[in-house]
């Protein structure tokens, strides 16, 4: 109680242990450290079969014939299915545009496209049988870039398009085009004292989640199927799966199995329909597990991009205008390409104030691997380019790159190029200030009394330098990412919250369909329930389709939207509990009639802290349960000609400072430190927030110096589908990542929070690139930077 006599207002949950703002521990932590957490690839069922997918060995071809007879005759094989075996007229799926065949129909459009599926009693039997399927291809020329896609005589990757973008794209091999025009760029350019033009290219990144695509489909007695699956959005999967199976949605039951990371790569379907088809065909449970090789073909990647920028500035350092053109390679199928285009366009100039802007973003259809969602999509590619431009302009002006950015930094109230005002804190300059103010890592940390410690040098254990050729560089970058689904999408979540007394204790159960992919949503849901309901015990119900949709675990949205839904449902439960209390006990104490009653520590208390009743007594035998959808404020589509519109519900910002040491002779890079400052609005779980920021930062480091799916431009075939040649950072490649977290509340969002997951992936890459440029003096217009680029030997 207050000691100085002044009444302290207790707000709901502030007295409850384990509520929001605390670093409570993961509810799944113990299961995960003991090996008992059941990931999708761990599923097992008596009598189950193994599914295997036969994939195309060429990127673009007509299928002349498929002969499955020998495969079917293999002992141990229960089913072989091709396009002809699909049960209904619905044979395609897709997130927005249903252009992806469940199994190839007459044509394959990319390397590794599924052509047939096999079910057998052992994975090796299934593999051998799949190898016996004879597919005859007649190869077609491959479309691999903008020039070949939009040539007048280009083969159409998709003939007879009927999607809603086809009407406004300049060529049928363009999935979607989004211009953004604001002010008058030509006029504004006249005010520019310096104009900097740059052309950039961004490689194809893989999500490289560690848990491979996998799941188990179990046929059910009512003719339906139960799918245990690792995904980012159960209900989106459901909507795509059920029509292909010819089943009503209620006969396709889905339960979230353990998800071994996602990062966007599980937004699209992978083996879901294949497993269900085989299970329904054979009447037996069917498990499919990709190996790492197949995983590289089994999900969409981050769009590679070509980006063309023009920045103008006055000699005082004010940006006059920005023009840019962003060409994203969507590959063979649309996936999330339209949304990626929308992000790239609307966030294409970065977190800066520019009144005169001309942006064009397009995504191509090509025969390259399909690309779609990956952490920070659209915004990541743009940030790499505009931050390189900002450094170049600063250099031309002779200004400090951080000061130049701060001079042009957006803030609350800034109007975006889309015309949308930024109506919550946008501390861009402050984040830069903070990240710059962090102490620098000591020089030459590799030096020790016993000579050079190669583990701290470029090249690491490979022993390539003992200090020779090593030059330090420092670089800065800042980025802007939207949070949540944009452009008018009805972005809602559903939460079911139940409160009851178990063994004398009030217990809350939170049931959502939110995909826990590692981000810690389950931790936060329990915290919200504790805060809102004043209980100690919260049970998180496994995610499944027996509750309404929670939307996707992507776009940094889950804490905001499903967290918001849980908060909302808890508030409704609280009201009902108080109603019961008033009904039962209202006559005993006048305070029951007051408005400010709280649930704290398992009791109903007044806002003065007086205890009115135990929750256990209020509830007795009754259980209170609420299931409600919750939406953030609506957004609207961008105008197709001008790009104007209130497109995004929230923005998030992060800034990085990279310190690198480059072996300038061998072109090897050691990132020494990657400091980050980020505004998170309100850290519901500070430990998880750090985990997100550090993890996102490391993925940005990967795209800066090593990660790229290499596609042969002549054949459109993937050249490095393995962890031997697609490299992601090891613990020796990843530096210390000090983080400065800023919490400036967004009044529109639950608890003032701001989506965290993606922003750090944006600025990490350009900061590392800037540091390498600083060390080497090279221009470096592509990422990832390879040793060849630093040594003039590419």
């Amino acid at each position, binding site marked *: 109680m207050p000691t100085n006599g002044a009444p302290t207002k207790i707000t709901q949950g502030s007295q409850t242990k384990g509520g929001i703002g605390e670093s409570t521990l993961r509810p799944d932590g*113990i*299961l*995960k*450290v*003991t*090996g008992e957490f059941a990931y999708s690839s761990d599923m097992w069922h008596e009598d189950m079969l193994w599914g295997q997918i036969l994939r195309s060995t060429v990127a673009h071809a007509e299928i002349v014939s498929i002969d499955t007879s020998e495969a079917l005759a293999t002992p141990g094989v229960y089913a072989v299915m091709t396009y002809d075996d699909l049960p209904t007229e619905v044979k395609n799926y897709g997130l927005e545009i249903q252009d992806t065949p469940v199994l190839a129909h007459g044509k394959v459009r990319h390397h590794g496209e599924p052509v047939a599926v096999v079910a057998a009693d052992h994975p090796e039997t299934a593999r051998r049988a799949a190898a016996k399927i004879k597919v005859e291809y007649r190869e077609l020329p491959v479309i691999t870039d903008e020039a070949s896609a939009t040539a007048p005589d280009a083969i159409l990757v998709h003939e007879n398009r009927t999607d809603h973008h086809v009407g406004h794209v300049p060529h049928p091999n363009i999935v979607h085009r989004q211009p953004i025009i604001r002010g008058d760029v030509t006029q504004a350019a006249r005010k520019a004292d310096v104009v900097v033009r740059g052309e950039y290219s961004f490689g194809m990144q893989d999500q490289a989640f560690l848990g491979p695509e996998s799941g188990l489909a179990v046929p059910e007695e009512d003719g339906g199927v139960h799918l245990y699956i690792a995904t980012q959005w159960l209900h989106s999967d459901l909507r795509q799966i059920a029509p292909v199976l010819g089943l009503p949605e209620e006969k396709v039951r889905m339960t979230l199995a353990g998800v071994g990371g996602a990062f966007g790569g599980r937004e699209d379907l992978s083996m879901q329909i294949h497993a269900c088809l085989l299970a329904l065909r054979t009447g037996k449970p069917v498990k499919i597990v990709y190996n790492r090789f197949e995983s590289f073909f089994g999900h969409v990647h981050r769009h590679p991009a070509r980006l063309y920028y023009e920045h103008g500035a006055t000699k005082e350092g004010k940006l006059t205008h920005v023009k840019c053109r962003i060409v994203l390679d969507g590959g063979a199928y649309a996936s999330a390409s339209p949304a990626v285009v929308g992000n790239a366009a609307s966030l294409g100039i970065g977190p800066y104030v520019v009144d005169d802007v001309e942006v064009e973003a397009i995504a191509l259809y090509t025969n390259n691997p399909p690309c779609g969602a990956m952490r920070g999509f659209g915004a990541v590619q743009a940030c790499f380019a505009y931050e390189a431009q900002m450094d170049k302009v600063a250099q031309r002006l002779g200004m400090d790159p951080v000061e130049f950015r701060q001079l042009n930094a957006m803030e609350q109230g800034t109007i975006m190029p889309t015309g949308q005002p930024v109506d919550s804190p946008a501390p861009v300059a402050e984040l830069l200030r903070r990240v710059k103010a962090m102490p620098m890592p000591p020089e030459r940390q590799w030096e020790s009394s016993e000579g050079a410690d190669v583990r701290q040098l470029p090249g690491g254990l490979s022993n390539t330098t003992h200090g020779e050729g090593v030059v330090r560089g420092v670089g800065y970058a800042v980025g802007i990412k939207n949070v949540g689904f944009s452009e008018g999408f009805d972005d809602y979540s559903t939460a079911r919250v139940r409160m009851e007394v178990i063994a004398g204790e009030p217990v809350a159960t939170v049931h959502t369909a939110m995909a826990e992919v590692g981000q810690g949503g389950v931790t936060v849901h329990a915290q919200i329930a504790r805060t809102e309901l004043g209980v100690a015990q919260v049970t998180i119900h496994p995610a499944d389709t027996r509750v309404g949709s929670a939307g996707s675990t992507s776009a940094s949205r889950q804490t905001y939207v499903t967290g918001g839904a849980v908060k909302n449902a808890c508030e409704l439960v609280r009201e009902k509990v108080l109603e019961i209390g008033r009904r039962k006990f209202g006559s005993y104490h006048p305070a029951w009639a007051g408005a400010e009653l709280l649930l704290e520590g398992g009791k109903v208390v007044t806002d003065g802290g007086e205890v009115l009743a135990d929750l256990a007594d209020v509830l007795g035998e009754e259980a209170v349960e609420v299931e409600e959808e919750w939406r953030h404020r609506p957004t609207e589509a961008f105008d197709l000609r001008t790009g104007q519109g209130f497109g995004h519900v929230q923005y998030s910002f992060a800034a990085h400072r990279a310190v690198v040491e480059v072996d300038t002779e061998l072109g090897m890079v050691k990132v020494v430190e990657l400091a980050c400052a980020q505004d998170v609005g309100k850290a519901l779980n500070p430990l998880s927030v750090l*985990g997100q920021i550090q993890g996102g930062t490391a993925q940005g480091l990967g795209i800066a110096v090593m990660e790229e799916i290499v596609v042969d431009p002549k054949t459109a075939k993937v050249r490095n589908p393995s962890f031997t040649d697609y490299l992601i950072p090891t613990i020796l490649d990843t530096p210390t990542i000090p983080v400065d977290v800023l919490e400036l509340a967004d009044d529109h969002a639950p608890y003032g929070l701001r989506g965290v997951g993606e922003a750090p992936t944006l600025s990490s890459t350009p900061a590392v690139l800037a540091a390498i440029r600083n060390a080497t003096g090279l221009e470096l217009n592509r990422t990832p930077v390879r040793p060849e680029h630093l040594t003039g030997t590419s």
Partner: protein
Amino acid sequence: MRVNFTVNGRPQEADDVWEGESLLYVLRERLGLPGSKNACEQGECGSCTVRLDGVPVCACLVAAGQVEGREVVTVEGLAEYAKQRAEGGCGTGACGTTLQDARQWRATGTDSQAGQGTELSPIQQAFIDAGAVQCGFCTPGLLVAADEMLERHPNPSDADIREALSGNLCRCTGYEKIMDAVRLAAARQGEAV
């Protein structure tokens, strides 16, 4: 073929094993021990790290037939393994557990999704406490590798930790919290001595 070996102190027999199967497959699909993870199956991620006769190896690169008569410790047996080591039992995995004990370790009360009541090794507890677990797919392999490193080097430098764990990929955490966890386990281990 048939393969007989010991897993987490308990004799195991796998029948009808295809000769091309890995130890990883046998553990996961035949013995009901899916804790060792199948992230790459090419020795490039460390998620399937187990101890084979005490030595950390990638279970995906061990042919099933090669473990005939050998001793394997997986993440599922890590807590018991660490406990025996702490009690001065043999830390090499070669001393074995009685069948009775082996059956019990798995049964220790997991009363909810959180699994409260489960006995953990210091490194397992440290991973939870430090926030080193996100999706958790790399966790089992990292735990086995980190536990073995702390057995050899009770006071590792940061560079030692990084080197010892350089065969274990993590895609979620950026490794910072993993570093924290190993430092924490080392510190607690130091205090306990």
